[in-house]
């Protein structure tokens, strides 16, 4: 299993959960989710930098890379 596929799927699962799952509390204000694809792509950019940092941290800690 490639690392990048794992990342992609994790991200997809995260967006799906936050926006489509979870208990619906009947608030009066409905926030619009303009474009889920845009949210997804934007998050990918945001998270890939986090992931890179984590990987670097693991490497420098002599981590347990498989």
């Amino acid at each position, binding site marked *: *299993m490639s690392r990048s*596929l794992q990342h992609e799927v994790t991200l997809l*699962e995260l967006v799906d959960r936050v*926006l489509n*799952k*979870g208990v*619906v509390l009947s608030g*009066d204000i409905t*926030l619009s989710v303009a474009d889920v694809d845009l949210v997804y792509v934007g998050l990918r950019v945001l998270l890939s930098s986090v992931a890179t940092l984590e990987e670097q941290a693991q490497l420098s800690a002599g981590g347990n890379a498989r």
Partner: protein
Amino acid sequence: MIHVYGVVDGLEELPPLAGVDDAPLERRRVDGLEVVVSLARTPPSAEVTREAVLRHAQVVEGLLARSRAVLPAQLGRAFRDEDELAGALRAQATQLGRGLDRVRGCVEFGLRVLPVDTGPHLDASSGAEYMRTRLEELRGQDRLVAELHEPLARLARESTLQRDDGGIRAAYLVERRNAASFREAAESLERATELAAVCTGPWPPYSFAEGDS
């Protein structure tokens, strides 16, 4: 505008995080139900941004680590004021209480198996060809369910399964103390299959927060 992250039970302390729009997290208690919220000082932008998605997810994750049970709230609704929030919680109190019982002590795992490649048959020119492709796809899915989903479902308290486009998507509600062994089982199944199967988690129990058990 009040943004709700989730309904919690036995929350030790708020996670050291800021909420959506950098607003501080706060606790509210209504008739024995506790929720974690943040107040947006700015007028509602009425749109979900990627930062909001990430922030919401991080806060809920922080709540999972610090409470006995958390029912993650779906991002996309907000409350105008405290009265409205209290009213909604009262109206849904029974259902929310049951929901907390259902997920107490549990985390969620996800499984996504990407579609099986049906190759050149995809460009089906005749009805018979199309049917054959479709049958192969269904047989492939049955195999996925039997070989990957069912063994994992047996390790879980509850599970959900969705078949989509030749692949499957599943979610599992797993007791915290079984999380490590569940993860191991999922990883060994991932390795055993030649398919693109990805197990994710542990997640807060988003997929088991709504609806009847």
